[in-house]
């Protein structure tokens, strides 16, 4: 039982990170119908940015909660700009082109970030500074919840609530929903589609950067290829929840995190990568639009 609860905590904190990345996928997919393969690499850049910012500002040697917040916010800002740049340079001109060419461009951008990252940051793993000293927050039997786990869960939750507020309550959020509902109709109603797309990429990339920063705290080893698998998993999580659907992305991310930790703990860690996909295929075969996906009737 203790092990179960322990894995539950681990799974939730991993799941929260997947959920943050998955939200970025789902937002971009919602407005652009594009699997943004570069998103996982933005998450990597987020972690790297946080690493450098922490060293430049000296928070790496003097851990403090304020330092963590500043590092995370700066990294989120940097990645938001990166996301806007990617959209502007790589995707904007391809919007009216076949979707497969946009997908290839996304793969190109992803590779550029990975290999460019190896060049800029160096190919070797880096050790993320302890921005916040890890200690156990609470202990019951052999179950330990560290403050890092709690922080990851709480900060992710706060960011998700913030995102929901932006999307549901602000004017730009309304524009975003309109564009994701119908591109052309939104444009006809006077919505600046370009601006909305830039904003979508900025929001998604900022969330990815937050996830990257928190992963640095949890698993201090970061390297330029670290975005690869989490990127794919987070996308799978978004599809699992029903892509384009915000709560779906969160639930999908949590499910993904929990499944992986439980499979590693109770079966074998080598099966971890496969089980997520088995669940995905199972769900999609029963419900092809994902858990929370809307059923759309195809018109002839």
């Amino acid at each position, binding site marked *: 039982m203790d092990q179960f609860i322990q894995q539950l905590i681990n799974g939730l904190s991993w799941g929260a990170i997947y959920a943050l990345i998955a939200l970025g996928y789902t937002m971009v997919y919602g407005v652009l119908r594009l699997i943004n393969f570069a998103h996982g690499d933005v998450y990597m850049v987020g972690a790297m940015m946080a690493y450098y910012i922490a060293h430049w500002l000296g928070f790496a040697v003097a851990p403090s909660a304020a330092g963590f917040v500043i590092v995370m916010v700066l990294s989120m800002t940097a990645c938001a700009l990166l996301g806007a740049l990617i959209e502007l340079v790589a995707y904007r001109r391809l919007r009216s082109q076949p979707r497969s*060419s946009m997908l290839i*461009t996304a793969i190109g951008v992803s590779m550029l970030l990975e*290999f460019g990252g190896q*060049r800029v940051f160096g190919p070797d793993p880096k050790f993320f500074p302890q921005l916040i000293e890890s200690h156990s927050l609470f202990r019951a039997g052999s179950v330990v919840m560290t403050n890092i786990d709690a922080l990851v869960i709480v900060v992710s939750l706060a960011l998700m609530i913030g995102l929901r507020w932006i999307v549901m309550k602000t004017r730009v959020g309304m524009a975003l929903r309109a564009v994701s509902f119908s591109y052309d109709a939104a444009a006809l109603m006077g919505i600046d589609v370009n601006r909305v797309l830039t904003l979508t990429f900025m929001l998604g990339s900022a969330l990815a950067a937050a996830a990257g920063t928190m992963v640095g705290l949890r698993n201090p080893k970061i390297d330029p290829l670290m975005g690869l698998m989490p990127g794919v998993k987070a996308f799978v999580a978004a599809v699992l929840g029903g892509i384009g659907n915000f709560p779906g992305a969160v639930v999908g991310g949590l499910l993904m995190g929990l499944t992986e930790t439980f499979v590693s703990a109770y079966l074998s860690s*080598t*099966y971890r990568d*496969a089980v997520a*996909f088995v669940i995905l295929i199972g769900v999609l075969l029963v419900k092809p639009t994902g858990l929370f996906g809307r059923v759309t009737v195809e018109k*002839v």
Partner: protein
Amino acid sequence: MAGLLHLLRRNALVAVIVLAQWPLSMALSRWLNPYYLQIIVYIGINVILAVSLNLINGITGQFSLGHAGFMALGAYVSAAFTLSLGASVAGTTELLVALLIGGFGAAVAGVLVGVPSLRLRGDYLAIVTLGFGEIIRVLILNTNAVGGARGLTGIAPLAGFGSVYGCAVVCVVMLWRLVHSTKGSAFAAIREDEIAAAAMGVDTTRYKVIAFTIGAFWAGVAGGLFAHFIGYIHTNSFTFLKSIEIVVMVVLGGAGSISGAILAAAALTVLPELLRFGAEYRMIIYSLLLIVMMLTRPTGLLGNRELTWRSWKPGTAH
């Protein structure tokens, strides 16, 4: 008997091409620097992979991201077969049998993947095929009988220039004929508009599964050739990055264009090697080129046209 004669006559040219290259193969393997030979062989393998995926992605329009999984199955199944024959195995017959077994192993998986394609569309299908590819990989990785995480070593190096290009020619001719036959139009019809195709009496279910099965079969053959060329296989060679690499070949060549897929397969195999001079910037240049090519020519090199002897001929879509 008459049918057999007809078949032979129709395929005489193919047979001649396949056979005539054997002397060339001998000469090449004797005179050519092994590095160049390896690149040339990789081009042949990638041509098979790109052309076979083109049937699924480009022509039938079923976006698949799991081609490396089929390739892995073919590689492991055929290698396990030749290994079971013993250490002293040598010869073209054994290789052919091994390739067929590998191809059929992959084709069975192709049927399995084809089935969800009946319910899923577009990106959902893409991600499910990606998942299938990864599941295959992880299952192999955990199967001790085929080496597991150690990889499979000591595979007889039966494949070379001759067998690879022999298979490539047969594959290209087979798929070219299939696509340009009356039945082949059904594949393109599904790509253009599935509902309209069904309304016109195309059995979309059947054709989608056929596309996956044939595509997977040839990916399996390519995997078998790969295994018997380098003599050592590990699941790391068949990650989803390999699948993506093949998709890039198909899209860059022009979705639906067989000659485009061939050209792109050759170009994208050689390109990284040409860029070796700037080893550190190699992959950066590669990815930049990919982005620039897509921005300047979003429909791929040839679009849906084919490069033929006579001239530019409209592709299968029209």
